[in-house]
């Protein structure tokens, strides 16, 4: 770089000392450079005389700055308010929604329990709410096959009783048993374990304080409650379990069966050992199966459906109660009964392997095999039975029949029995190969005698099972007088 290039920087004092010295020495010797230096200094000095410009607009600028600052503050305030509002809303939602959902669930459970209690109150009085509901609308029972099918009625929510809930402890071995079962519209993701514990004494004490209370058992892993019916119940695979408490077990049992039989709902079992639900002298279990086929039909419509006729069901009917006796007998808790020998096994043969029911099972099977199949064709002529069986003895039939007679007309059939023996005892009106197919047998065209002697079962392909546990209220000692 030549010295001339840095001459302007030398004038402005922007050079390094070394370069500055070089130019200073050159200026002393180089006349042309010195002349250029003088011209540049004169040119640079001429800018010092540049007149200052008249300024304007300071006030307006200051005002604008103030306004702008104010607007910015307002915007920040708005943002802060909006953010605070969102935060507060989120916090409130986080706090309120769980409370609301809990309260909703509690209210639902309360209404459910209230409905169940109402049902039991009516049942104790001789006329159940279920009966009323079915009289008004038979579909309601079919659609929601539980004792508390009418529980959704707002009228039942009046005077809601206290709900006593018992939550059994969680068992680790149940964790793997998850099956998506759906009851009504309520999807239940976890089934109940096979073990349903008895209510503890304190729960029973609470139960004893008021008549016709309902103790609602809850499995810790089971979603209980039906939104549609408001019923709190157990979900045991394909079962719904309703626990009812009566002043006495016998009266409650009779009332429930009476109600069930009145509306021709199939009773599968009456056994303390049903589905491993514990039974003792104060507890009985009634299992009813409501076929899905009839879920949407009225009683009149049901009468026109094709049916199957099972012979000698009068004896089996008796076995329903024989089962009860047998169950108690087998456990050594109830009176022994010969008829009970076939009791528990009558319809619940699949579960008969437990405890002392084996003997009863054998007896029953024997009795059943000896029963004479007397099928009835649609035309009224007796058909040839699939398997010839010996009739039951009168003593056996009589010992198990009386209670059934009280409950007729009854549709009694065991799904287990159907599964095991149905092919032997049932006459399918579609099995007429090579012959003209006879008209379908319906409840209407079966003669009255046959109907009475041979209770009819609809042929369910898929049933909805409800387990009704009838228990006796515990009798507690009177409270001490202070």
């Amino acid at each position, binding site marked *: 770089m030549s010295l001339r290039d840095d001459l302007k920087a030398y004038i402005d004092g922007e050079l390094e000392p070394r370069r500055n010295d070089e130019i200073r020495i050159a200026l002393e010797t180089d006349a042309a450079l010195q002349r250029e230096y003088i011209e540049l200094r004169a*040119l640079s000095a*001429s*800018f010092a005389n540049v007149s200052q*410009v008249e*300024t304007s607009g300071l006030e307006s600028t*200051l005002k604008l700055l103030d306004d702008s600052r104010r607007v910015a503050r307002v915007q920040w305030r708005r943002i802060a308010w909006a953010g605070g509002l969102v935060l507060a809303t989120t916090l409130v939602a986080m706090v309120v929604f769980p409370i609301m959902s809990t309260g909703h669930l509690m209210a639902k459970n309360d209404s459910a329990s209230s409905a169940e209690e109402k049902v039991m109150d009516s049942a104790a009085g001789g006329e159940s709410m279920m009966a009323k509901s079915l009289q008004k609308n038979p579909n309601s029972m079919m659609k929601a096959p539980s004792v508390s099918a009418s529980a959704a009625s707002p009228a039942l929510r009046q005077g809601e009783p206290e709900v006593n809930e018992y939550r059994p402890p969680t068992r680790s071995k149940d964790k793997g048993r998850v099956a998506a079962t759906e009851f009504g519209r309520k999807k239940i993701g976890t089934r109940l374990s096979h073990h349903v514990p008895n209510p503890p004494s304190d729960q029973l004490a609470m139960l004893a304080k008021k008549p016709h209370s309902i103790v609602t058992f809850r499995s810790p892993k089971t979603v209980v409650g039906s939104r549609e019916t408001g019923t709190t119940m157990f979900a045991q695979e394909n079962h719904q379990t309703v626990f009812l408490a009566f002043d006495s077990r016998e009266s409650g049992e009779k009332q429930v069966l009476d109600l069930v039989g009145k509306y021709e709902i199939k009773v599968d079992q009456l056994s303390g050992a049903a589905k491993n639900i514990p039974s003792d002298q104060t507890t009985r279990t009634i299992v009813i199966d409501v076929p899905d086929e009839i879920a949407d039909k009225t009683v009149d419509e049901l009468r026109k459906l094709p049916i199957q006729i099972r012979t000698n069901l009068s004896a089996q009917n008796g076995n329903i109660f024989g089962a009860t006796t047998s169950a108690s007998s087998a456990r050594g808790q109830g009176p022994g009964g010969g008829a009970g020998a076939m009791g528990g096994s009558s319809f619940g043969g699949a579960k008969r392997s437990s405890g002392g029911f084996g003997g009863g099972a054998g007896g029953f099977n024997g009795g059943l095999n000896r029963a004479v199949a007397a099928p009835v064709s649609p035309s009224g002529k007796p058909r040839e039975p699939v398997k010839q069986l010996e009739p039951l003895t009168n003593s056996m039939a009589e010992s198990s029949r009386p209670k059934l007679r009280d409950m007729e007309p009854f549709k009694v059939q065991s799904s287990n029995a159907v599964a095991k023996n149905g092919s032997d005892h049932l006459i399918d009106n579609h099995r007429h190969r090579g012959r003209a197919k006879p008209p379908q047998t319906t409840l209407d065209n079966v003669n009255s005698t046959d109907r009475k002697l041979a209770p009819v079962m609809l042929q369910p392909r898929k049933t909805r099972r409800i387990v009704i546990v009838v228990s006796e209220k515990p009798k507690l000692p009177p409270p001490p007088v202070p």
Partner: protein
Amino acid sequence: MIKRSSELDMATIARQHYDAVFRFCARRVGIDRAADVSQETFLTAQKVLHKFRGDSSLTTWLFGIAHNECRRASRRTALEPMPLSIDSELSTNSDDESAIVDRHALSQALAKLTPEHREVVILHEIEGLTYEEAAVILQVPVGTVKSRLHHAFQQMRRALFSPEEAAK
């Protein structure tokens, strides 16, 4: 001492530096638009005041913003720079070296410069900024400022002192 941005009040800054910014803008975009561009400069400065870290002087920082605002205004409308006016009282002083420089010729020579050369001359000679400060405002290296100044002054010197050489 340069204050932190949190301690600065834009109104105070505007009162202190408005004249310099206004003159800077007037020589870039003309006196008619200088007020608007100065206003935009301070409004922009208020928005980005929190970014001022004190690495440079406040004047340099404001001139940098004003420089960008002037370029933005020049892009919107073709603006003519303010013609340079030299104070007659000072220029008539015979003892001064500037007396040998014709005022009109100086204005013409300055107007003939390219915008880059002209703004360097204005920043250094009129606003009194150093090379480094001018480099910060123009966002160019210091060497570029030095080079631009050299070429600008050579061009003006030829126009003022050697018209024949400048005509070549």
